[in-house]
């Protein structure tokens, strides 16, 4: 084995990659070669570190120095200063926003302080394409332990005792689900990994699959052993080409090493994993639609029962868990149920990965213990709302989740509390919104997503979401009526009550939660014909403050509709009938005389 004096980790996560990390990696390679360091310094592309806002990230070990926002021109400094001379490049270190202090060590970043990185433990640390690196971090030890020392029932008991609940959103106890499938009659049995992460802005599963694919494979192998399954399918979005490629590679490598395939680790246990690429339908994240899609049918849900555990793929017992759930399994087996259950709340054990996005300082991927408050996530980890704006709301649980206000921020994050507050855990999307966000607009945004992603099978979801969206459109266009709010509420409740699958049952959440916490804002749109956040264009009016207007006529020249009239050197006026609220005049006015009202 080669020995290196330093390791340079370039983040290959989604955010950093789009920020230009492949170019950084190439330049580093070049620069190392130029300096004759290629034998001494190991250059590694890793999975996501989580702190995407600061990307591209480069981390240098053994010091654990993290460089942020690394640009091509910075590469030669990192090599010549840090790697040749041992001097840290100060200007590339993370700067604490409040104290403005530079933080040299990765581990000292406040972003990571309150995190509990279990599932993401290897992400950003190992090269996901090298199975040995995973093995070097205790990889496949849990599988070996399960096969050598535990009966399938003991494995299930361990998972039950750990209190692990499905991370896909519904929070069903994983051990219980496994047991149903284990007890179901029919051969062969299947296990499925749901990697159809469809929430806009979510990339938890993607990061795990890209950054630590073997963790998922190992979890699946343990689950298959416990359930008695011999076939497995990973359903992953085709929009994740890197994840797809790394999964294929990981399966191949694991098979070569006897960790998957026939007679795993010399035992009678065999598991064959297929990878099926989904075509990007949100509804295929729903179990039965996902199974239909795997079987080559249109991705449409079917009523349950029969549950997949009884009749799933090709009518055989099938157990489905999402990526994060599977990724939790190896540690539970290796370190024990008690260890796992020591984290989290009474009903929710372990950790949860969230994709933190929106108006928050540190957008990125975070893993926190269950029960942590949203305030801690948004402020302590996320660094709060940027640009001095005020926090307004957080949408948790993706497009089917709920929109929670400031008053709910001290809520501990777990399945029950979120549901009680009108949101859902979902797969872990957290979108932070500041004061400039219009709440009607937010509801419209999420509704337009679920409207487009509804499969069209059941009446309430297909027709109802459209009608709710149309009502929201009317409200934001200033054509709303107060009765619309009652109709919205009634329709939302009935869609929840009557829809076939989880998509429809949860799609009204954004409406119900915003009506619950921000009803005044709806009323302002309807009664006052006013959008308090100034987002809904139809409700804006521009007017010219007479005391500031000098009659320079600059505004009349840019107005596309001729809505502004006035003599030179006299106060101008805007005809609201003609004004299309484009805002060009306000931008052009040298005296800030034109304002929204």
């Amino acid at each position, binding site marked *: 084995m080669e020995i290196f004096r330093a390791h340079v980790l370039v983040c290959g996560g989604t955010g950093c990659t789009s920020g230009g990390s492949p170019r950084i990696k190439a330049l580093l390679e070049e620069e190392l070669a130029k300096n004759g360091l290629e034998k001494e310094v190991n250059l590694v592309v890793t999975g996501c570190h989580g702190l995407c806002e600061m990307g591209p990230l480069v981390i240098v070990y053994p010091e654990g120095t993290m460089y942020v926002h690394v640009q091509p021109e910075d590469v030669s400094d990192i090599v010549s200063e840090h790697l040749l001379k041992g001097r840290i490049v100060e200007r590339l270190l993370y700067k604490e926003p409040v104290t403005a202090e530079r933080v040299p060590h990765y581990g000292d970043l406040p972003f990571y302080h309150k995190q509990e990185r279990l599932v993401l433990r290897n992400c950003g640390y190992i090269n996901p394409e090298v199975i040995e690196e995973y093995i070097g971090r205790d990889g496949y030890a849990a599988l070996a332990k399960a096969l050598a020392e535990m009966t399938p029932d003991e494995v299930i008991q361990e998972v039950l005792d750990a209190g692990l609940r499905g991370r896909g959103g519904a929070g069903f106890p994983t051990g219980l689900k496994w047991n149903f499938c284990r007890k179901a009659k029919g051969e062969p049995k299947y296990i499925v990994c749901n990697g159809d992460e469809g929430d806009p802005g979510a990339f938890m599963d993607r990061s795990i699959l890209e950054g630590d694919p073997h963790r998922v494979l190992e979890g699946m192998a343990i689950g298959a052993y416990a359930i008695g399954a011999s076939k497995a399918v990973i359903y992953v979005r085709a929009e994740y080409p890197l994840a797809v490629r790394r999964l294929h590679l990981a399966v191949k490598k694991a098979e070569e090493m006897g960790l998957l395939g026939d007679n795993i680790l010399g035992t009678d246990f065999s598991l064959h994993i297929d990878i099926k690429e989904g075509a990007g*339908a949100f509804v295929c994240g729903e179990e039965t639609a996902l199974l239909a899609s795997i079987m080559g049918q*249109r991705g*449409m849900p*079917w*009523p349950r*029962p029969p549950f997949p555990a009884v009749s799933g793929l090709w009518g055989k017992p099938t157990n489905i868990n999402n990526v994060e759930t599977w990724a939790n399994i190896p540690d539970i087996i290796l370190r024990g149920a008690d260890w796992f259950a020591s984290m989290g709340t009474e009903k929710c054990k372990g950790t949860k990965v969230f994709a933190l996005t929106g108006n928050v300082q540190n957008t990125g991927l975070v893993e926190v213990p269950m029960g942590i408050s949203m305030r801690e996530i948004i402020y302590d980890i996320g660094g709060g709302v940027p640009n001095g704006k005020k926090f307004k709301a957080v949408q948790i649980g993706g497009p089917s989740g709920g929109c929670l206000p400031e008053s709910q921020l001290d809520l501990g994050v777990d399945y029950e509390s979120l549901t009680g507050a009108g949101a859902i855990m979902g797969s872990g999307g957290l979108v932070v919104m500041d004061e400039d966000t219009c709440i009607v607009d937010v509801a419209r945004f999420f509704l337009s997503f679920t*409207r*487009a*992603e*509804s*499969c*069209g*099978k*059941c*009446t*309430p979801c*297909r*027709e*109802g*979401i*459209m*009608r709710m969206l*149309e009502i929201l459109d009317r409200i934001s266009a200033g054509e709303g009526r107060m009765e619309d709010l009652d*109709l919205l509420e*009634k*329709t939302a409740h*009935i869609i*929840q*009550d*009557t*829809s*076939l699958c989880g998509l429809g*049952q949860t799609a009204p959440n954004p409406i119900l939660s915003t009506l619950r916490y921000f009803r005044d804002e709806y009323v302002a749109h309807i009664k006052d014909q006013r959008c308090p956040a100034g987002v809904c264009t139809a409700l804006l009016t521009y007017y010219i403050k007479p005391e500031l207007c000098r009659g320079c006529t600059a505004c009349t020249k840019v107005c596309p509709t001729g809505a502004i009239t006035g003599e030179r050197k006299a106060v101008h006026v805007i005809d609201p009938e003609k004004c299309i609220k484009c805002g060009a005049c306000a931008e052009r006015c040298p005296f800030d005389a034109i304002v929204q009202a």
Partner: protein
Amino acid sequence: MPLKMVELTIDGRQVSVPEGTTILEAAESLGIEIPTLCHDRDLIVAGACRLCVVEVEQIKKNLPAACAQPVGAGMVVHTNNPRVREARRTVLELIIANHPLDCLTCEENGKCKLQKYCYEYGVQDSPYEGETREYEIDDSNPFIERDMTKCILCGKCVRVCAEIQGVNAIDFINRGFDTKIGTFYDGELIDSPCLYCGQCIYMCPVGALAAIPSRGLGRDYDVEKVATTCPYCGVGCQLALNVRNDRIVGVTNIADSHNQGYLCVKGRFGYEFVHSPDRLTKPLIKRNGKFEQASWDEALDLVAEKLGAIKAEYGPDAIAGLTSAKCTNEENYLFQKFVRAVIGTNNIDHCARL
């Protein structure tokens, strides 16, 4: 294996049904009708229309669909309480917000299940306004009209075509609100693998699918239905001829039959020959190589005379009778009786062999 029985309460009445029975079936056994638009006893449960939702006290989360929800021991089910009625009314309002209310000219008027339920639930118009789906009518083929503007997307046509016929001529296309039932590449039916069995028309709960040869000839309540046996192949499907003004104007299914109501294109649409202008309406006698119309008396006297003469001159075995695999038993019986007892020969046969 004896079936395990499950006891439950539906609308305050106790019922015991085999395990695996759905709430819909259990209610049916009590004579309680639960409205459905997408359910058929012979199709795999889809749970799509959501009209059959009921309240189950033990299921807190939502209102389960009676067609898909199996009974559970001790369940307390309400099929018609205010919450359920409100949900159904809303589902109907959502449907008719996107359904032309052109019952005046619709072929399905009087038979339409949407109409029936709107009537029963007092749904006259919809509080929802907005976009509606509108499509061109497809009558590219001789038999099946597809007016997808009227379609309520229950999916029964898709399922009967796939599950029962194995033809898969149509399927859902597009998604969400824009979902539509279409052929491959959303073409016309004539270019699809459709075999025109017309099962989809039979399944359609509204007027989205209609039999072209029956258009405008009478609605369900205008016609007399005469149960009979199909005149084509040996399966002998039971069907109902729809009759108006002494003409056959259509064919409908008889579900309780050895053919389970199913028919093929010939059984459903192949009746037109009965009204063909080519039908023989008078006896014909050939004179000098040309047919001339004759009275029955003339024609029958001639036949009796000729057969009598040939029998007298050459014996009965100089005459043969060809009976028919298309005529009734009674006619075949009489024909062989005629040949054997009246003519006096066993020279009788028919094309039994093809």
